[in-house]
Structure formats: C-alpha cells, structure tokens
C-alpha cells in the first residue's frame, strides 16, 4: 500500500487529565497508521480518551505517564493484538466481526508508530 503521509496533530486532546496537559507534537503517519488512528478514534477513544475511565484506571495501576495509550512508546503490536482479541480487565474482547485482523494491525501500527 502506498504510504500517504498525512500530518496530524497529536495531542489535540489537551483537555486536562488529572491536572496533566499533554504536549502536542506533529507526526507523519503512514497510510496504515492513518487508518489505525481513524479506527482508534472510532473504537478505542470512548474509554481510552483523556480523562475517561480506562485512562484513569491505567493511571492508577501504572502511572500517569502510561495512562494515555496514544502517548505510550512502550507498547508492542503483539501485546495490542492480544488485548484486543482476548480483552483485559473490564475490556471485553473485540471480535473479528467488529474489527478485522487487518484493522487490529492498523491500530497496533498507530499505537506503536515510531514517528512522533
């Protein structure tokens, strides 16, 4: 697939999250990462957005720096795929009829992107 570089503003979610404001940064996304961001915003953001319950739960279990998935640099594609398909804690698994394997791969690519 041809890489269609797209500039997006990461960290547009500057709403305060427990007193922490996330810095903005520019990044060039590949086509797969762009698709992953689109899917993330349609699927994951409802719990993992800034200030939302899953973000707050992760902040409590790990720390605030690891709370917002989009800001993490320590996630692995393999781990993301496993969690999406198997679920974790109160997060149920997402089925193939909800997200195809290619779509899960795209989300994983977005969350593990190197360009930030």
């Amino acid at each position, binding site marked *: 697939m041809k890489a269609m570089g797209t500039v997006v503003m990461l960290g547009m979610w500057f709403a305060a999250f427990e007193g922490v404001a996330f810095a903005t940064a520019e990044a060039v996304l590949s086509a797969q990462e762009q698709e992953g961001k689109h899917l993330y915003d349609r699927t994951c953001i*409802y719990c993992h957005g800034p200030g939302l319950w899953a973000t707050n739960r992760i902040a409590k279990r790990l720390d605030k720096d690891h709370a917002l998935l989009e800001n993490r640099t320590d996630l692995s594609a393999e781990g993301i795929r496993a969690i999406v398909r198997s679920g974790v*804690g109160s997060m149920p*698994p997402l*089925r*193939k*009829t909800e997200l195809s394997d290619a779509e899960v791969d795209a989300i994983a690519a977005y969350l593990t992107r190197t360009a930030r």
Partner: protein
Amino acid sequence: MAQSSVRPPGVSAAAFKDALKAFGEIVGPEWVLVTEEERHSYLDAFAPGNPDEHAASAAVAPKSAEEVQAIVKVANRYKIPLWPVSTGRNLAYGGSAPVLRGSVVLDLKRMRRVLEINEELGYALVEPGVSFFDLFDALQAAGGKLWISTPAPGWGSVIGNALEHGLGYTPYGVHTDTICGMEVVLPTGELVRTGMGAVAGTREWQIFKYGYGPVWDGLFTQSNFGIVTKMGVWLMPQPEAVANVVVSLPNAGDLPVMVDTLRPLRLNDTINATYTIMNPFRSIVDGFSMQGKSRPDIYQGRDSIPFDVVAKELAAEGRALWNATFNLFDRDKGLDLRLAAIQEAFAHVPGAKVLTKRWQRGQPIEQWMRVQPGLFALGIVDWYGGPGGHMNFAPVVAPIGKRVGDLYEAIYKRFVEYGVDYYCGLLNVGPRALLVNAVMFFNRDDEDLIRRGRELYRVLAKDGIAAGFGDYRAHISFMDAAADMYTFNGHALRALNERVKDALDPQGILAPGKQGIWPHALRGNKEGHS
C-alpha cells in the same frame, strides 16, 4: 476448518462438522468462527460464574438477510441451535453468549447498513449490526436534524436494544416504542415484513406501526420467534433547547416523596424524558468511576458497604443522599415554563434543591445531554476493584411513593443479608412505570461474592413472586427464574409462549431458553440451564 471443543447438545461430531461446512458455503469459510480464540470472544465477558457454562460451539456471521435465511435452513436440517446477536454487547445480560451451551452464535454485526434516513418524517431503517455510534455518525453526516436516543453503552445495537426493551434518556427513551416495521427471518427460514412492510412496494413502512391485522412487532421483542434483519426506528427532531435538572433531597427516607413529586410532572409531560433516581450508593459509585477510584479506596469489608460509609462520602463531596436527574427537551421558552413548574413542585418538599443547566441549538453537544453515545457506563463495572461484572434485578413498579419505598427497602434488606453492595437506580419507563434497577457488582475472580450474588437474585425473584412483582429483563443464567415470576393462572403466559414457539419453530433451533421460552424437546431440561 478448525474443530470446536464444544458441540450443540444431541448433535454428532460428524453432523456438526457438516453443518459448519454448509454454513461456510453460505457466508464464506472465514466467517465461520470456531477457533478457541474466536469462540472465546463470544463468551459472556461479565459472566457471574464460569463463562463456559454458556459457551458457544461456534459463530457464523452472515452479511445479508438471504444468508440468514440459508443459515436457518441448514440449522433446521442438522438441528443446530442458533443464538442471534446484533452486536453482542448485551453486557450484564449475557453479552453474546447463549442460554444453551453449545449453541452457534448467529453474529449479525456484519449487517451494519443504515438503509435510510428520513429527516422529513423522522425515522431511520437500519440493520442489526448498526450500533448507536454508527447511527449517530450517519445522522450527523446526513445533516444532524435528527437525534438518537442512546442507552448507557453506545456500542450496543439500535435494533438489539429496542428488542431487549432497552431505555434511553430523551422523549424517545422507551426504545421498544420507537420500533416501526420489521423484516424478520422466521425460524423455518421464511422472510416476512411487518406492518405496512407487508404491502409490496410500500413507501409507508416506517410511518404506521399497525398495518392490517395483528401487530407482530412486539412478538419479536424479548423472544425467540424470529430473527430481525431490518427495523424502522423513529427518531426525535433536534430540539431548539435542552435543560438538565438535578433534584437533591437530604434525608435517607426521602425516596417516596421524590417519587410522588416527580410522578405528576412526568404524567402531564412537564418532564418529557426518562428520569433516573439514584440511591445514595449509586451517587458515589458514578463519581468514583470517573476518578479511577473504587470500593477498596473507602471500604474493605466483605459485607454490604455500610450506609454511614456511603453517607460520609457523599457529605465529603457536598452531595445529598437522594439525587434525581433528567433532561427536558423543548423550545427555550418552553423550558422556562417546564422548569418553573418543577421548581414550584419541589418548593413544597423540605430540603429540596433543584439545579439546572441549559443548552441551545448551535452550541456543542455536551455529555450531560445524553444524546451522544459513549462508553462511560463501563467505568463502574470494576467497583470491587476488578476485573468486574454485574447482574441486575429490576422489577417493575408503579411510581407511587409508598409502594416504591417499600419495594426499595425490601430489596435493600436482602442485599445487606447477602452482603452485596446496593447500587440502585430507579428509571421511569414512560409516565406510569418505574424500574427499580438493583445492580449486583462482583469481581469475576471472587467466587464467594458471585455465589452470594446469584443466590441474591434467586431470593429476590422468590420475594417478587410473593409480593406480585416481575423482573423486566434478565441475565441468561436467570431467564427461567425471571419467567417464573409471571405466575398468573399457572404460568398461562409461558404456556402461550410455548405454543407459539412450537408452531413457529417446530425443530426448536432458534435461541432455546431465551426469556425462559424453551422448545418442546428441551422443556424438561429447563432447570439445568438456570
């Protein structure tokens, strides 16, 4: 094709293999989901106990009504029980898991077209895989003149939620009432359309519910009489303005006066949408979930959390013991009149406080308006620390203060007796009914708490029988127990349901045990499944 470690009861390995192969020829082999990982994704994610008790043997995911028809015919040939799910997010009621272990889940999520949006007449025609998120997006793309009514979790199906008698928080909040016209695959594979849809070439399918003759739509809700493949849903035109109201009362015994004060306001449509009365415990839990806090932060006992702990938390937040919240939808001047009437009514209640906020067309939609789907509700599930789940007992009661108060207290005593925290919201279903939605949270790895929760449900159901109440909806583990509450004339309603079931589904392949309706061949096994 991979083999499943679970089989439908009474079906040989060879027959099951042939059936799966036949399903694959209909939908494509990639949409027959049978590996352990795939089957795992159809387990009840919030199971109160071992989810394997309700494990599916496989799932099959069609793309069209024609494929559903073909699957049903194969299921009849091999006597494979099918458990249809729309998006499979009926969490706390079983999610996508079947009542009968070994059923094949008929996953309709791939059927996710919004077939029509009609802004002139205020309706949409959708397929079962369309979630509230999907419909919201489609309506926004169409111009945003129509609003959805969404339940707490937005990833649920518009069709599935209406079929399960779900609720939202707008004037269109009784979702079953918004159904207008269905397309249904019957358990023997025939395709029918209800209401005006029975007229070939009609353009009036979604505007008149009744058609000519009996109205069938209700028979396909909370039942196992057919598979709904299309449905019309009425939608609310965007109002000019919205107001939110929070009514607070200070005393532990204020529930009856809250109910009696709200009732006439709802009955005369001053309050024109669903209201929720939160018990003291619910008020702290809802706040905690957004803060990442849970029970262990304030209480570690194995008993039901004491009232004084709850009251202390609320006092620390400056909140009252009883809080009711609802939204009003009108023109701006209309809201002024409605709010004045509400203020006047509660001016007569000692200690009452009424807080309001407003929205006008053109302003951004805000979360409190509850017209944009989200997943905020999932945050409460880990109340006991997680990984959590919950089940509900929600008897129907008239909004008469004393009657509601007595029922609320009777349930409260049982929760204390069984050592379960008493999270309770009282929601109106139209102007004349309340659900006392008593929620039993648990950690999924806490066998003792789950056992107590399950026993609690059963004793509450027995109490309900003695007092003349019925549950409105139930988890797959308790569908028989809930059906048992409908006792009139020797459970004559269940007998009628069974006669209809046997007539429409002679092989008994569609969702055996749903709502306590079992096909003839499995009726004797009922107790084993509840």
